[in-house]
């Protein structure tokens, strides 16, 4: 049977310290980005309209971005927060801070007055959005704690369990830092993606731990087998998510929600490749060769 061989690292050539250094460094940089972002903006990641409140209007027009801002600001007393191209063709996403019903009415009638076709309007009050933000953070926290507890129950030993949890933690933190760098806001879609990552990214770690701890065979042999399966899994998922991101992006179909879910999952799964096969592997090797002996 001819098989496509997954490239593997010759782990025997590197010490645990060397292996751990790269993922820890990346994690440190990611945390620094998040802390820096928090210091600058007051939030670990910029929340989108779903969490701050505001009105988002998608209009179809041949006017330019400057003309659109002008059109709204001359007709309403509300400041245009941003104008972005959306979807394919002549669709623009215009955002405002104003959310009250009467304000939204004024904004939509201004759009009609300017001759724009309203494709979508969505507004969320600040109070509702604040509650959503609280729930989203609570949800991510609860999901992470729940996952960690389950991992400890599954393996019942400290080092292998903490290896999985640490790797999952990094899998969440790195995409959040990347969201800041690429200017992706925290939306309902990205929250869903982060939660999905908590469940998704531990798969390859579970597989690795299972092979190393519960199977016969040498450490390196087990790791190699787990890696062959695990890398295939993660690459398959990355392929599915990259394609989804690309196809649904505004350059092709312009479907909302799907690109942001996809891109965060691609970030997280890529981070997971590094975390599983550098961080988790070295912690497991430490546990296998030194942790148990002590």
């Amino acid at each position, binding site marked *: *049977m001819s*098989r*496509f061989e997954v490239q593997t690292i010759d782990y025997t050539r590197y010490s645990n310290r060397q292996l751990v250094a790269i993922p820890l460094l990346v994690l440190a940089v990611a945390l620094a980005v998040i802390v820096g972002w928090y210091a600058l903006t007051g939030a670990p990641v910029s929340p989108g309209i*779903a969490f701050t409140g505001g009105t988002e209007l998608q209009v179809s027009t041949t006017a330019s971005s400057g003309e659109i801002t002008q059109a709204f600001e001359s007709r309403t007393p509300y400041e245009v927060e941003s104008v972005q191209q959306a979807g394919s063709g002549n669709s623009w996403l215009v955002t405002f801070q104003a*959310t*009250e*019903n009467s304000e939204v*009415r004024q904004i*939509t009638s201004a759009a009609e007055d300017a001759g724009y076709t309203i*494709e*979508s*309007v*969505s507004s*969320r*009050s600040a109070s*509702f959005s604040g*509650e*959503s933000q*609280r*729930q989203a953070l609570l*949800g991510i926290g609860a*999901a992470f704690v*729940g*996952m960690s507890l*389950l*991992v400890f129950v599954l393996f019942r030993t400290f080092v292998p369990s903490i290896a999985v949890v640490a790797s999952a933690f990094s899998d969440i933190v790195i995409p959040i830092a990347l969201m800041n760098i690429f200017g992706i806001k925290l939306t*309902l*879609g990205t*929250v*869903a993606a982060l*939660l*999905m990552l*908590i*469940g*998704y990214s*531990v*798969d390859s770690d579970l*597989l690795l731990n*299972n092979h190393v701890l519960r199977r016969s065979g040498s450490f390196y042999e087990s790791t190699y*087998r787990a890696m062959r*399966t695990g890398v*295939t*899994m993660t*690459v*398959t*998922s990355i*392929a*599915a*998510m*990259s*394609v*989804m991101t690309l*196809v*649904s992006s505004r350059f092709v*179909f*312009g*479907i909302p*929600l*799907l690109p942001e*879910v996809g891109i965060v999952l691609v970030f997280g799964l890529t981070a997971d490749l590094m975390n599983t096969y550098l961080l988790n592997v070295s912690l497991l090797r430490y546990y296998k060769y030194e942790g148990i002996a002590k």
Partner: protein
Amino acid sequence: MNLRENWRVVLLVVFVVLASVALFAPTGSSDAPTNQVPAQSTQSAQNGTNGTNASGNNTTVTVQANTTDGPTNLKFGLELSGGTRIRAPLVGLTAEGVEVPADNATTLEQDLATRLNVSTLDLRVDSQGRTVEVFTENVTEEQFASALQASGYDVQQNEIRDGVTEQTLETAVGVLDRKIRGAGSLSGGDAAIVRSGGEAFVLIEVPGATRAEVLELIGDRGQVVVVAHFPDGNGSYRNVPLFSQDGIANVNPVQIQQTQQGGEQPVVPTTLTQTAAENFSDAMQKFGFTQQGVSACRTNMPNDEDGYCLYTVRGDGVVDGEIRGDVVYKAAMGPDLANIINNEDFVKDPSFVTSAPNRSAAQRLQLDLQAGALPAELDLDSGTSYYLQPSLASEFKSFSVVTGLVAMLAVAGVVFFRYREAGVALPMVLTAAAEVYILLGFAAAVGLALDLSHIAGFIAVIGTGVDDLVIIADEILQSGDVKTGRVFASRFRKAFWVIGAAAATTIIALSPLAVLSLGDLQGFAIVTIVGVLVGVLVTRPAYGDILRSVVLD
């Protein structure tokens, strides 16, 4: 092929067949009104149409909760069908734990109405539920507490909370449902109660309608009050509310009556409840409407000179002796009705005809009377609203199907590249496809209205599904050929430990979303969790069996 050995494959086939039935079998109810609750909503009390729905009603159209179109029974939510969604709390304050004897409830309502300068329709005293509610923005918690104290009820300000009771929410949802279904211009939709944090919201979804159309229908409470307006004999006029929607037992379709002058008069024929009828009959005799007041309403005169009139008021009715709201119509007591009342026959057949200035006003009045009044106004400024153009939505629908297919192809590509053997890779892709297909069948069977978040969930399921199939394949195809069924069974069990553990973490990670009401994400969580369950219990074991027949042959 031994059926007994391949029971897992048989199970998969059964599920695929069931999914096909759910997706494609014609359902007799597809064009009957359905009480479909949208996916995002928690189970709500939809008390439907409580006998006020007159048959043959010319304004009632056939409605569906969410549009099902195309060849399948799938339902699509607003993000894929277009329309308007509004989520808003009800305006009001609630005092909890107030012991009001049932006999004192009406007195307390009148007492509080005077003290707070609001209509009694803005108050609700529930002696069973031990709550008192006030439904207006103009009363603060402090004012409400002191009014209750002044009426002899020891209620502190901290015992008063923002929001209304469950009962009021349920009434509101019932009224909104009837309004949406009764409105001829809308093609369906519904209302439900949803919760976010500690707060309860009313969620209204109307496919195909614009924001303005929906707000037109639900923007005000639709309260209609019939008020007696008459001279009190001392040179001034009195306004006495006679009945509101609560006093109307039955509403009939709009009719056009010929007036004595030969004109046309649109009217809404109604039947009053026993209590309202008695009250009306007594009041008409007492206030002189059946004597000197017959045919004595001079509608062209200003309010303080027009004589004995029955006002149809849209709004609060009467507060502190003054009309509050719009007077839609002024009518005089007819001689025939006066006779019936004087003979005490009105209570036996309490038919009351409400007139309107024109046909469209009559339709609106009929809808408001039939649907009932909203117990409290919707606080539109504290919620969310969403509108999506139907044409754009249908683009999203077809584009997301293509996106899903392309993602599937990408997965197939990676799998074929990795295994280079159709016997392993083809069943893998087909099994993952079957998983999505069964999930679609589930969505059709339970009437889940699909939105973009569900589509994201479906694509995520393709990803996790294939992951687990890779684990099974690698475990079974590992070095050393599978010679016997026993070796196979042992490897299969080993693979399943990881799959089960991975499934459990995914379910745990997503369950906060399914439980917490982040509204728009519940769908995603539900689809992914059900997908994982279907995968672990049905499709992935079947793939193991398929693979066995491939490797053992």
